[in-house]
């Protein structure tokens, strides 16, 4: 069974139809790369996946379970959304690290807050002293996990630095580690290298490549065509709110059938 199934997603902003029926399936461990010209709806699609926008129509399912249904209000309540969105992680174009927190605190903030509410439940079930022990144990786990997350992005030494002390490439790598800290099933990237100086693009793409090789399921919006060709299992070309063409990297890059895909690929080289 596919890990991710997107069916017939529609999204309007007022009178502008931005997504006009998007269907995508993605197998576990695969990398989906989305390409397309500016304004074609790539960011909007990722935002729908991460519940930052609610689709007007269509469903998003993970492991066969419908997480969001644009026409079913029950799936759109704050509480349900907060629970379901953790299936996804999102790395932003602008990193969006929390400037007042060190690298370590950026990584541990969300897990620690989640732990806090879990321990409340645990306390009800097992009593105060057991809860205290459990809390200490889990907190230690979170700390150790931080080290484990920073190593593959090559930033172990920066654990106590603040975002303003890091280069753009380093900040983006921290943002990736932060997204991974919550162990999402599917990690989404919205043009993760577009805000970077050219010489810093490589280090971030390398991290993405390693993640892909380690079997992480990923959805990547990017303009880095060489990277897309190397890493993608499946490529989707979006145009004007619909999928104009899709297939393996070879199919889309080497033998595009759609006129607009051809034009786009030419314009980008």
């Amino acid at each position: 069974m596919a890990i991710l199934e997107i069916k017939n997603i529609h999204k309007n902003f007022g009178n502008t139809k931005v997504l006009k029926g998007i269907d995508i399936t993605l197998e576990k461990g695969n990398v989906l790369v989305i390409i397309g010209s500016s304004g074609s709806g790539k960011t909007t699609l990722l935002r729908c996946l991460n519940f930052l926008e609610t689709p007007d129509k269509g469903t998003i399912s993970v492991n066969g379970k419908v997480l969001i249904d644009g026409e079913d209000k029950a799936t759109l309540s704050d509480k349900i959304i907060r629970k379901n969105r953790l299936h996804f992680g999102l790395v932003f174009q602008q990193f969006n690290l929390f400037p007042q927190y060190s690298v370590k605190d950026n990584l541990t903030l969300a897990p620690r807050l989640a732990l806090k509410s879990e321990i409340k439940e645990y306390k009800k079930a097992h009593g105060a002293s057991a809860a205290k022990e459990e809390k200490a144990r889990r907190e230690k786990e979170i700390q150790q996990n931080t080290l484990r997350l920073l190593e593959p992005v090559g930033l172990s030494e920066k654990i106590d630095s603040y975002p303003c002390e890091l280069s753009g490439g380093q900040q983006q790598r921290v943002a990736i580690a932060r997204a991974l800290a919550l162990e999402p099933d599917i990690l989404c990237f919205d043009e993760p290298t577009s805000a970077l100086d050219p010489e810093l693009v490589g280090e971030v793409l390398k991290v993405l490549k390693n993640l892909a090789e380690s079997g992480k399921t990923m959805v990547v919006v990017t303009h880095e065509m060489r990277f897309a060709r190397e890493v993608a299992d499946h490529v989707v070309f979006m145009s004007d709110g619909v999928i104009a063409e899709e297939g393996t990297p070879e199919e889309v890059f080497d033998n595009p059938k759609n006129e607009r895909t051809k034009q786009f690929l030419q314009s980008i080289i």
Partner: protein
Amino acid sequence: MFWQVTKDLLEGFGTTLELFGFTLLFALPLGLIISFGSMSRFTPVKWLVKTFVWIIRGTPLMLQMIIIYYGPGLVGTYASQIENPGIIMSWLATWSVFDRFVAVLVAFAINYACYFSEIYRGGIEGIPVGQKEAGQVLGLTKTQIFFKITLMQVIKRIIPPMSNEIITLVKDTSLARIIAVYEIIFMGQNYIKLEGIIWPLFYTGAFYLVFNGLLTIVFGKIEKKLSYYRG
């Protein structure tokens, strides 16, 4: 003579500080509530609050003080002259002037709350939406996002304008003498009337200077403390 003057002025400065302290105590939280109102997604609330802020910021504090001090008394006198007053009119007839200090405090608290609310609003709206969204995708609740992510960044942003406004407040307290609250300038002026000497009035400036100097140092310290990060 010098010591007598110093003692009198210190007494007046005590009133000044009281007015200053209580104004902050009420205006700081009230301003936050007003700023939430002015950012409300419910349009009628938003416009009501914005109009209120516009009126308060668009008229002199001195006038507001006078209205709050004399207003209730006028309403009371007027209402008590009506024959066969209804429930509302009988109630209005019980209105009388506030205590002088209370009237001044009410005017100051409302006035400064409106100025603070604009500073808060600027601070909150200046935080990039990406910060909130990053919190959202990490599964944080709205409350957690406000307290763990937004608040600290807002504080850092508003410290400089707030320190300006607060130092202005110290000086604005001198307006209270208009309705005979015995703050420090009032005490200094008294010496002109009673003894025919003017230097005590000049001397009051030293008190303001020292106090504002202390405030500047405190705000500088806070700013420095928050300067461990940028952004």
